[in-house]
């Protein structure tokens, strides 16, 4: 990584969007360093530091600051538009330079020039270290390039079992839902004590065949309908009406001995 030449730097894919116009680009070609190929001011400082050819820990930060300021000057001469962070770094380095050159002022607060220089050297060393290990990392054997995974993986078949759950609350709510819904049934007349003509007719049609002789129609009343007077009245009326219906159909005969006497019914022989 350390042997990279500036020319090569420009080949790296720039992370930042193109900042230069075509004209500027032409001008930049002439410049020793393509600024756009750099990854920020720290990157430039690192590249410049290589000219010192010393351990980064023993680097002359003052010399480096001067080199950077010179670089910025040159870029300005070439009317190369530098990004703000490059200029911020220039300003900071100019400040650092003055601190390093002037004897320390004991009344002044904050870190000394030496401390700042040490930190800058640390930053450069750390960035260089990261680049070195990045290169080592990328140089490792890689999956799909140097070693390989199973070419035809056998698919794991998924067997899905579904289990159902319900809680006691679900159950109770379900039941409550049904029971309360019952109360919402549409309104219908309560026909509990009403014996209809249809019911009577159905019953008599079934029974009439068994009764050969005259039988009182009251005996055709359904079981249990003779206790409650309301029910008795309804059943009597329905049975009488049904009897008339049967006579009309020619299936039965009716007779009554006297007024209010019991009404009798007899099946009419179809052959007659």
């Amino acid at each position, binding site marked *: 990584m350390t042997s990279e030449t500036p020319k090569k730097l420009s080949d790296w894919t720039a992370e930042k969007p193109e900042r230069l116009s075509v004209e500027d680009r032409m001008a930049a070609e002439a410049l020793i360093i393509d600024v756009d190929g750099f990854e920020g001011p720290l990157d430039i400082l690192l590249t410049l530091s290589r000219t010192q050819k010393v351990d980064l820990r023993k680097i002359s930060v003052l010399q480096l600051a001067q080199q950077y300021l010179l670089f910025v000057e040159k870029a300005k001469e070439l009317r190369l538009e530098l990004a703000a962070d490059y200029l911020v770094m220039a300003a900071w380095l100019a400040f650092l330079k003055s601190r390093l050159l002037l004897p320390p002022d004991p009344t002044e607060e904050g870190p000394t020039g030496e401390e700042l220089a040490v930190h800058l050297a640390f930053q450069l060393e750390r960035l260089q270290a990261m680049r070195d290990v990045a290169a080592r990392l990328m140089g490792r054997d890689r999956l799909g390039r140097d070693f*390989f*995974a*199973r*070419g*035809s993986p*056998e*698919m*794991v*078949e*998924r*067997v*899905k*079992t*579904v*289990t*159902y*759950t*319900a*809680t*006691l609350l*679900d*159950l*109770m*709510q*379900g*039941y*409550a*839902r*049904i*029971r*309360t*819904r*019952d*109360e*919402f*049934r549409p*309104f219908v007349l*309560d026909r509990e004590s009403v014996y209809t003509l249809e019911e009577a007719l159905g019953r008599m049609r079934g029974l009439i065949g068994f009764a050969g002789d005259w039988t009182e129609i009251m005996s055709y009343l359904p079981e249990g309908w003779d206790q409650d007077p309301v029910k008795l009245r309804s059943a009597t009326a329905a049975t009488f009406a049904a009897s008339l219906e049967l006579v009309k159909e020619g299936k039965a005969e009716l007779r009554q001995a006297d007024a209010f006497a019991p009404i009798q019914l007899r099946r009419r022989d179809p052959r007659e």
Partner: protein
Amino acid sequence: MSDVEEDRIEESLFEAPPVGEQERMVEAVLFASADPVTVADLNARMPHGCDAAAALVHLKKRYEGRGVNLVKTGNAWAMRTAPDLSFLMQKETVETRKLSRAAIETLAIIAYHQPVTRAEIEEIRGVAVSRGTVDQLLEMEWIRFGRRRMTPGRPITFVVTQDFLDQFGLESARDLPGLKELRSAGLLENRPPPSLGASLDDEEGGEDENQTELFEE
């Protein structure tokens, strides 16, 4: 220099790798390849002088009885997991779903009214009970068939199972809360104005009677 001469020099420079090494190569290629590989293909990919066919014989023996076997498909070779271990290639996932509303209601009716016939369930729910719903509950072993009802048609009845009681943490179906408790628990809150028919309390009374009778058999 002629081609023949070149070949000769190459041969002496690049002697075929040892058999063990060839076996490794075949192993790696078969492993990484998406499709079965023919002997010709193997030979083409391996260094000059290799004998893939011989390496395959060794490799096949090495994998005999292992979890992975060397198999020939057509005229090509591939590595496959041993057929007896196919069960490992299945991943069983258990998905828990909520019981459907129809199933819950049916289950609730069976629990509260057991033994109860299908016709009775339908009458209470007001809709037909689908075969699937009953089958599901039977399969889950939360309900089972009870005795036949001694009425015309002798319909089969349903009752809840011990599994059901365990699932819902009930000692017996009699522990199911009655309507009064459901209401005090706020489960009957959305009841309509009590203007129609018999009051709920009466109904509940009848209910309880039913239940007692049913559970004491």
